[in-house]
């Protein structure tokens, strides 16, 4: 079985973000980078599938500068067999349509039986790329899965809907699924696997070889949201803060009455 998992490297969302010099994206200086959280579930599910079916080959694909190799190595240490690094120093400027086109062009002749992606990225949050790739390749694409099973060429998944209800969906393969948080428990790479990952193949492809479309949207401006003010901000020593808060709760609510 031939499996592909697509990942993205994103900043830690706890970071203090600043807008870059041209005002259209966040400044990448001084940020800590990690694997997009949704993609960790995608990698884990792909590795579990590989372990289940035995004879299989699992490729992890990532688009970005050399910086993303670190994140790819984590995916390799989690159990992916090989990496496909699409080298692109301007990946952040590309819209979801361009990113999906790059992936679909890479994947189209490689007969993947299953493709896993995260349901969205934590920075852009467009929730488009996975489904676009499926449509470009003419595959069934199922978004937002929180359960996945594979049996003899058939997949059964649960899509998460609002209110925690789940839709049960079945499909043949090849197919693509986009992974929601909570799908599984992503493993921590062990030290021996981190060492092994260093020897795994990391193939590099220039993005120009795969990109043959133009962006359909543009970010004109990125900025910090205006503070709406409103709320009271309390700072200080814990015991004093507790006294202040209790007084406020007595004045403004009925719960301590």
């Amino acid at each position, binding site marked *: 079985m031939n499996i592909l998992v697509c990942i993205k490297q994103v900043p830690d*969302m*706890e970071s203090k*973000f600043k807008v870059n010099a041209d005002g259209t994206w*966040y400044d990448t200086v001084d940020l800590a980078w990690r694997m997009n959280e949704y993609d960790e579930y995608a990698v884990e599910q792909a590795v579990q599938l590989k372990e289940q079916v035995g004879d299989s080959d699992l490729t992890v694909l990532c688009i970005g500068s050399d910086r993303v190799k670190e994140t790819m190595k984590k995916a390799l240490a989690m159990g992916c067999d090989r990496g496909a690094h699409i080298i692109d120093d301007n990946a952040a400027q590309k819209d*979801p*349509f361009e990113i999906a086109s790059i992936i679909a062009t890479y994947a189209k002749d490689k007969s993947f039986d299953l493709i896993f992606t995260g349901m*969205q990225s*934590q*920075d852009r*949050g*467009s*929730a*488009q790329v996975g*489904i*676009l790739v499926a*449509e470009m390749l003419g595959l*069934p694409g*199922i*978004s*937002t899965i929180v359960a996945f099973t594979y049996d003899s060429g058939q997949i059964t998944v*649960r*899509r*998460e*809907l*609002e*209110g*925690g*209800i789940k*839709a*049960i*969906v*079945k*499909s043949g393969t090849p*197919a693509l699924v986009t992974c929601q*948080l*909570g799908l599984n428990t992503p493993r921590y790479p062990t030290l021996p696997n981190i060492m092994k990952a260093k020897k795994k193949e990391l193939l590099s492809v220039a993005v120009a070889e795969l990109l043959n479309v133009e962006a*359909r*949207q*543009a970010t*004109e401006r*990125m900025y*910090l*949201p205006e503070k709406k003010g*409103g*709320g*009271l*901000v*309390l*700072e200080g020593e*814990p*015991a004093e803060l*507790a*006294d202040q*808060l*209790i007084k406020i*709760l007595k004045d*403004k*609510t009925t*719960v*301590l009455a």
Partner: protein
Amino acid sequence: MKTLLVAEYRDGKLLGTGNELVAFAQQLGAESAMFLVGSSSLLPQYDGTLYLADVKKYAEFNPAVHKQLLLDVIAKEQPEMIVFGHTSYGWDLAPRIALAINAAQISEVIDIVDGTLMVGSCNAKLRRDVKSRTEQTVITLQAGAFGPAEPTGTPNVVTINTDITAQMEFSGYEAADAGGVDLSKAEVIVSAGRGIGKPDNVPMIAALAKALGGELGASRPVVDAEWAEHHRQVGTTGQTVSPKLYVACGISGAIQHLAGMKKSEFIVAINTDKDAPIGEIADVLVVADLKQFVPALTEKLVNA
């Protein structure tokens, strides 16, 4: 400006998304028509043309078929904007439509000013102004960002059909995990977020909930990590609550969480990050280390 609004029907009910889409069209001053895979026995109140496909025939989740039904309507109506809710239905179907009509898709729009669409980035810490470069544009609206409009009118129903075949099989629903706690009835909820750091700190948050006579709630990451049961989850995929007091402990304030608790009467957030988005809706933001502040507060409440 002409818009096509994609309403939603699930499990025998019309979803509220439709009224938010109508509010969006009204804000734009745009003409609109509505698309729904639903039932003729449960029509939305809507003052305009409703293109209706029978859900019994085409199933509630059937992307290839819903896509074709919608493409046929788009070909007929030629809308400049096709508008979905940013929901499990909308974010699944919208990219398929955008690709088929060579349109840009702009996701999770929170506002529109003079044709410029505004979206959030990086867990609402940043905003972007986005411009479409295509003639038609597909957009999804953030839940709660527009309206809802007061439902009014009787639609002019146009029944639609297609003979395209399904790509996958939808075989029904599984109910949300049932639990012993109905958070919607609690007067006080104290919720734990990822910022509590580790599962060992959950009892500390539960103790504060008890001291306030309330229930323990949780954000999604805490439930996903199995530090708390799913029935304690507050937010889009958990419960929607509006207690007299909501205390958010170590919760940054992802939109999915805010959607589930922002109607609470009084909101206290406890967070080390002064800039966390939860501060935007909190009545009081306590900037403090939870491990010091929460036990201090609990002790004073218990001994009061």
